[in-house]
């Protein structure tokens, strides 16, 4: 019996009278590929914020590799191997792509405490950053400032930073959001090719992606887990169709259905 990489138990969070997260239980095994879906306002991003420590839960616990991290800071969780990407890019816009990646590596390995040696003195940091960029086909952009980069490429940097943290659990908050469909396959290829050891939780609205990528799906409705299961089970579940796929119209359901 192995310890789950990430285990969320009885998580609750209210903003005043608004109960946005209700008794959520969720578990990611090592190497898991789980999608978190649900209609708008279901509390998906809030759940990510609770897991990563941006928000403190009203009650419940979060465990990372068996250790209780409920009380630890966001930064501490990141250092223990919990990485995330943001739905809206959160990058160092005035720095180069390469510097963005080096920042994450330096923080992971503790180089960033150094205030005397030059940032370029650690060749292994730069080489590792370039490796990450190379695997995402971003090497040519390594010296461009983020703010001069097309949005789709910025989304890739978003993922590259998270990967540079060498996470054991990775939370992807709509990685292809805002990217034109002509470019989104680049991002989805990266997501599909992630290291099989990393446990991944992905929030995604595109059902094509969800059914292609996920081995398990959790459906969140009004802050509570509505149901969980394999893609086939979710697809056959009439209730899910009613609350979620129904809302998106028959197109979404039809497209999902066309894949089996």
């Amino acid at each position, binding site marked *: 019996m192995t310890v789950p990489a990430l285990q969320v138990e009885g998580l609750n969070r209210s903003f005043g009278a608004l109960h946005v997260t209700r008794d959520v239980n969720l578990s990611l095994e090592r190497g898991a590929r789980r999608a978190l879906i649900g209609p708008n306002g279901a509390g998906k991003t809030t759940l990510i914020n609770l897991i990563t420590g941006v928000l403190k839960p009203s009650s419940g616990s979060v465990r990372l590799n068996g250790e209780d991290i409920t009380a630890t800071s966001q930064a501490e969780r990141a250092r223990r191997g919990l990485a995330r990407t943001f739905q809206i890019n959160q990058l160092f816009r005035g720095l180069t792509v390469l510097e963005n990646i080096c920042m994450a590596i330096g923080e992971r390995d503790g180089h960033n405490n150094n205030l*005397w040696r030059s940032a370029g003195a650690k060749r292994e940091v730069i080489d590792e950053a370039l490796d990450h960029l190379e695997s995402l086909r971003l090497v040519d952009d*390594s010296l461009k400032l983020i703010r001069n980069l097309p949005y789709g490429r910025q989304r890739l940097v978003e993922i590259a930073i998270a990967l540079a943290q060498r996470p054991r659990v990775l939370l992807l908050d709509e990685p292809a959001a805002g990217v034109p469909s002509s470019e989104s396959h680049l991002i989805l290829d990266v997501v599909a090719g992630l290291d099989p050891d990393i446990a991944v939780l992905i929030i995604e609205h595109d059902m094509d992606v969800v059914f292609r990528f996920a081995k398990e799906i959790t459906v969140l409705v009004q802050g509570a887990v509505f149901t969980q299961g394999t893609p086939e089970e979710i697809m056959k579940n009439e209730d899910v169709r009613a609350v979620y796929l129904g809302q998106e119209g028959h197109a979404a359901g039809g497209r999902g259905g066309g894949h089996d």
Partner: protein
Amino acid sequence: MSDIKPRDPAILDARERGADYLVRRHYFRWTEALPWLIAIACFFLFPNRMTFGNQVLIMVMFALSLDLILGYAGVVTLGHAAFFGVGAYTVALASLRLGWSEPISGLIAGGLLAGIVGAAVGWFIVRYRGLTLLMLTIAFAAMLQESGNLRSDLTGGYDGLPGLMFDPLLGYFQYDLYGHTNYWYVLVVLAVVFYFVRRIVYSPFGQVLTGIRENVRRMHAIGSPVHRRLVTVYAISAAIAGVAGALFTQTNAYVTLTVFDFDNSAKVMVMLILGGTGRLYGPFLGAAVYMILEDYFSKLSPTFWQLGIGLLLVLAVLFARRGLLGLAEDARGWFAAKERDKERRSSAPRRLVWKREHWTALGSSALDGAIIGFIAGFAINMKQIELMTAFVTGMPARALTFTLIGAGIGAGINAIYLLITSRTSVEEQAS
């Protein structure tokens, strides 16, 4: 694994370029010698203005300390005079009350004490941002000033502690009336401090500061202990401000509680922003330009010199948002773009489209110019004549002339500006 696979030479080349940039980023460039050469040249060119030169160098150091937290870490503070004051009073009180008059150890003590105070204060306040932080920093400086005032028996209050004596530098160099010894003393200390700051800025820690400025949410997400980092840089910055304050007391042999003034905090911030934040050399340019103009204006009109400074700031805000160094960068970028433009001019024919808003812009800039010209005319009258009589006698004719000239210049500048921007906008549409 990566060495086994045969690699695309283009990728290897791109990797090399990327690594090269980071490795070489902190190398000294020859232009960096310029401010130091100018400082040394000033000693020989203006030997009788060295006391003033000293004040400039001290303000450069003070602005440099602010650049670390404001320019790099993006923490806005309006109370940095607090730490300048701590340093200034450390050496004053040590000399007067403890008889500890050795300058260099006093300098170090002033820096250390200011750094400790900075760490303590920073621990409380850097968790806030924006207006809250601004108010807290102002309040802290005011508190220090007021507690100094309450113990005016010790601090001398607003009358100050005059006639402080310090031992000869290194036990050998005597001070002179012209401030020559002091000038070299301050310049060497500034060089040492600058070396430290430069190393910090180019270190991984310096990158972290930029990261906090650029996106603090991401810093948390990649596991950075943001609060600890900010307290560290706040303490370092406070220590440097303390060293500047200590030098201020030592070179003036005099200190009053006005070193804690809000004016002092605001002035150093203005200097930094005028020169350009987050650029290492912004403090040099900003402090020098500000102080030289202040000196010039106050000779021109002892009563109204602040008007000149005010105009300067208005111009800076209108035309050089990112400071003088930012302006220089823009100019370089503009010329580079023009070069590129030359090469492909044939493909995209340029034409000028006048729109209605261009005319209104022209009109409003003429109005701005008129107001500035009016004030300038008024100020120049001030030079010779008393305020009230100036209004009555000298004003109409001269002010009218200046108003017209000002309007002309304002409209002219804007017309040129519009010519440039409207052309580029047409081209952007085309491409």
